[in-house]
């Protein structure tokens, strides 16, 4: 069964676009990344999935249950970490965590204690005294303490220091191994590249690519860095050329043989040819013109990148 499935999901806020015709399918047990810049529609999608807002068109379902139906039944299976976790002022951390468990009518004290311990969270503090990162930790505990079948995380690592981020992803992976599906929304690509198996890229409310993280990163384009003097004029499909002192750096999508001929004709001191990382690919998805986007969607990545 699919953990998340949306068909033609659309949301308009009055006339303003939220998302348009979003087709998304997340299999049970996946670690799924959802990538896009601010305002692309990530949070809108998540808010429809969690029942906070109603879609203007299309459908969305979680474990086969339509989200426009019984929200409380669907939310039983979900743990949700909002991008900005805000709690009731005046409450202690432990009371918020207890309230969250009580609202789920469950006793999660053992799991909560383990999580607080691993995240080094002081449960005696009042929530309004917490730093942004520590509030995030409270949100993480609330999202995970009941061992949900699906965990939806919106920008989960903002505010967490690198050590905590690692601990957090360790926890996520452990829970994922024991069956939890993870839907991770982020604009930090390295995070998705390291932790997710599949990812979808969203731009201006539309899905522009959805594939395994490996295939998303694997295009015929290479990042070429040359120290020395070469003349690139004869090459086709050279992009993002950056000259630096004593060399040049560019993305090359053409024939490798031609590249080698051009390089052999020049004066090369040092050379590296590498796969571009997801970050770079991502930047290109976003810098491209809309018609390129349409082409990408049609699966012609090789020609355009």
């Amino acid at each position, binding site marked *: 069964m699919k953990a998340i499935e949306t068909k033609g999901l659309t949301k308009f806020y009055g006339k303003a676009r939220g998302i348009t015709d979003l087709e998304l399918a997340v299999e049970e047990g996946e670690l799924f990344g959802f990538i896009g810049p601010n305002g692309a529609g990530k949070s809108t999608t998540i*808010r429809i999935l*969690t*029942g*906070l*807002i*109603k879609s203007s068109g299309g459908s969305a379902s979680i474990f086969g249950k339509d989200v426009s139906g*019984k*929200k*409380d*039944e*669907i*939310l*039983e299976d*979900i743990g*949700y970490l*909002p991008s*900005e*976790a*805000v*709690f*009731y*002022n*005046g409450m202690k951390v432990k009371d918020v965590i207890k*309230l*969250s468990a*009580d*609202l*789920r*009518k469950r006793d999660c004290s053992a799991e909560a204690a383990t999580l607080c311990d691993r995240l080094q969270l002081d449960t005696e503090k009042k929530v309004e005294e917490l730093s942004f990162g520590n509030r995030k930790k409270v949100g993480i505990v*609330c999202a995970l303490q009941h061992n949900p079948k699906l965990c939806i995380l919106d920008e989960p690592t903002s505010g967490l220091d690198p050590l905590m981020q690692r601990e957090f992803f360790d926890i996520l992976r452990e829970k994922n191994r024991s069956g939890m599906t993870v839907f991770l929304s982020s604009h930090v690509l390295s995070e998705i590249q390291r932790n997710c198996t599949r990812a979808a890229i969203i731009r201006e409310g539309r899905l522009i690519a959805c594939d395994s993280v490996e295939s998303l990163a694997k295009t015929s384009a290479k990042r070429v860095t040359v120290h020395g003097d070469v003349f690139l004029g004869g090459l086709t499909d050279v992009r993002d050329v950056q000259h630096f002192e004593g060399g040049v750096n560019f993305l090359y999508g053409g024939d490798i043989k031609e590249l080698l001929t051009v390089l052999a004709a020049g004066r090369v001191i040092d050379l590296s040819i590498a796969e571009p990382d997801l970050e770079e690919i991502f930047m290109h998805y976003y810098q491209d013109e809309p018609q390129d986007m349409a082409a990408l969607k049609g699966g012609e990545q090789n020609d355009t990148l």
Partner: protein
Amino acid sequence: MTLFKHEMKQSKLSLITWTASIGFLMATCVLLFPEMKGEMDSVSDMFASMGSFSAAFGMDRISFGSLDGFYAIECGNILGLGGAFFAAYCAVTILAKEEKDHTAEFLMTHPVSRVSIITEKLAAVLTQIVIMNVLTLAISIGSMYIVGEEIPWKNILLMHLAYFLMQLEIGGICFGISAFVRRGGIGIGLGIAVMMYFLNIVANISDKAEFVKYITPFGFSDGADIITNGEIDALMVCIGMALGIAGIIAAYIKYTKKDINP
């Protein structure tokens, strides 16, 4: 029940403050009564002959020298206005605050249906209004014992019942408003309470505006009317309760469909 308990805990301080303030003012008035009673025989005539001003507060119809007359005017205004503010404040913030304080995202992503959120929050508002009324009544009766006056039970209880019903109406209307607004609700709620209060004063001053009493809940909770008639106007109460219930129904209709803006 979890949310209900949570709401009661959250509003504990506000409930204590409002109850203590209203109770304190009412107790002070009652405790001052014996001292004022002696002077009242002469002052009563003066109060009764200030024309529109007397009419506005019903002082032309009841005697300032008797405990229930005094109570209707002094304490009636304190509990009437104070209670209306309290009910408006509780009700108009209860739903809206989740979005205003950005806690909606936390609350609404738990497996609690919107209907139970509304119901438990409504129960919290009503419970707070009941507690405030029971306690202020107890404080009033207590202070009447202290000053050793004979207690005009029927009139006092009728007045308190009327104020309670009035708060329910205002609470119901403001609860409805709370479902529609995200911020600025407090101003609207208190504004409605003040407007209702002054509508009744207008109705008291001018015979032509008498019908306004059927609109404002201060119409059926006017102490002077209750003492003069020995009863609460049933028609006015029915209209009032209908308005309150309409507010609550509106809250259910709106809030179950509302896009939550976290």
